[in-house]
């Protein structure tokens, strides 16, 4: 299986000015794998996954996504972005567009689909995340959980091979967390390659193939979820787990 990485990072480093935020990252994700990334605040989790679709630019080392290396080549960036979907902590829906337009916009302009085709697929994915009845509303009229499900559907409309999630449930009221996690679980069951920054341990145990623990810009530990949560190897992992368990 390790012969088929869809994401590959080799000696990757990133600085924000003088601040060395990602240090010598070597990391692979196989096709169809589900990864949960955790770690203390400021450890570089968001930065790491944002490098994958080049919302952040790494300074040296290599990042190869589905056979294409990320460089300044705009064509490559566009290709990778069209294949990698992303969900944000604060949803980032487009408030001036209706839900269905939020979903249909990128397929129409990036994939050059007809409006009809794009809207039909939008409706298909809205049904999948169980909010087809809200299609004509605007994001501001939906609850947080509904908005996040729309955001997931919006990313799916681009038919991505990889989905990135950056703390998708941490801005939600507790009663809405489950509806979003349910969507993510069903997505995982369909075989989507997923990288997910989250502290939802139940979710990690249920779907993750691997948990990646980061601290201070480094990947400190990688393990199967049960191993990681029940028997962490590193001092810092233990400390972190003892903190989030209380």
């Amino acid at each position: 299986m390790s012969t088929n990485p869809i994401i590959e990072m080799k000696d990757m480093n990133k600085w924000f000015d003088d601040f060395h935020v990602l240090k010598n990252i070597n990391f692979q994700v196989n096709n169809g794998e589900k990864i949960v990334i955790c770690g203390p605040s400021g450890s570089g989790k968001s930065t790491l996954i944002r490098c994958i679709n080049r919302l952040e630019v790494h300074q040296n080392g290599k990042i190869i996504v589905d056979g294409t290396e990320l460089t300044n080549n705009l064509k490559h960036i566009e290709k990778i972005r069209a294949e990698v979907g992303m969900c944000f902590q604060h949803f980032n829906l487009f408030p001036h567009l209706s839900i269905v337009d939020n979903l249909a916009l990128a397929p129409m302009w990036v994939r050059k689909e007809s409006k009809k085709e794009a809207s039909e697929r939008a409706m298909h994915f809205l049904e999948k995340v169980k909010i087809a009845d809200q299609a004509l509303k605007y994001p501001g009229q939906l609850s947080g959980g509904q908005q996040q499900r729309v955001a997931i559907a919006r990313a799916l409309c681009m038919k991505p091979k990889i989905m990135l999630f950056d703390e998708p449930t941490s801005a939600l009221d507790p009663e809405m967390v489950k509806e979003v996690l349910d969507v993510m679980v069903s997505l995982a069951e369909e075989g989507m390659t997923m990288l997910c920054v989250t502290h939802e341990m139940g979710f990690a145990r249920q779907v993750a193939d691997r948990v990646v623990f980061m601290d201070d810009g480094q990947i400190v530990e990688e393990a199967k979820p049960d191993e990681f949560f029940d028997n962490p190897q590193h001092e810092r992992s233990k400390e972190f787990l003892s903190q989030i368990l209380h």
Partner: protein
Amino acid sequence: MVYKFTKNPEKRTLPRMEAMAKWMKKNLFSTKGNTVLSLFLIAGLIKIFTPIFTWLFIDATWIGDAAACREGSGACLAFINEKFTYIIFGPYPREEIWRPALTMVLMFALLWWSKEPSRWSKKLVKWWAGFVVLGWILMSGGLGLAPVKSTSWGGLPLTLVLSFVGIFISYPFGIALALGRRSQMPFIKSMCVIYIELIRGVPMISLLFMSSVMFPLFLPEGVSIDKLLRAQVAIIMFISAYMAEVVRGGLAAIPKGQYEAADALGLNYFQTMRFIILPQALKIVIPPSVNTAIGMLKDTSLVIIIALFDLLSTTKASLKDPEWLGFSVEGYLFAAFIYFILCFSMGKYARRLEVEFHRGHKNREVNI
């Protein structure tokens, strides 16, 4: 929170007088202190406005000559009556005045038609382009119409042309400059910054002077560009810089997450701007850009210094008529009245647009 845009049915069924009494009670006489204050202010207003009203309407001389006016104690509206055509149309040849009049009627008709955002389309842009061509022919002649030089255009049509053309054309320029100023490319960015700061650093008068005095020096001998056109270019250059700053304010108000979401979906720079950023940013800047537009409409009166006869210049000129000396208050009031109507309707329209554009996501603040 639920917003209601439909009128409250209770309110509608209330008889008019009763509703008014209720309103007054709530807004003017709610407490003893408020009652005293309200009565005091109302008395003051009556004291100030009664004499003005009497002067302007009751005692006014509506028809007659200057002598009749001097005998009366009120405003000389006969002066406006007499000078109306000149103030509105300036030195345009009298027998051809139907041409600018028709142009203005067409323009107002087209403006009225354009006011619904649902009608904004490429077709509408074509209509306006057609209007500009037609208006140009009507005003300057051709196709069998006697030629009229742009130096004899004047009054309201001139003010409207200079300001509306200026505002409409400078809007896209302003957007481009604002985007340029936020660009990652150092050359483009610095060019835009220099342009904006240079223009904003000088008064419009100096730009107009340059357009009329300096600019011709740079042209090869024998080539001359229409004075009106030069003034128009100067005005467009001026407004663009201000519009750029207004638009920049709107761009700065769009959260970073919107750019990131667009990037993550694979939209390119132009798509992101066109579909995501600008629609939101321009909506935010409706009030300040109308403010700028209103300011510019009034600023076009500065073209007086390069001897173009805009509305204010024609008013001034008619005051100099030896037969009608001494009615400057009436003249200026009339000009002010026209400016007021124009600016007031612009402001009112902008408020309507704001409400309309807001309707879609009116609950935005509630959930985020």
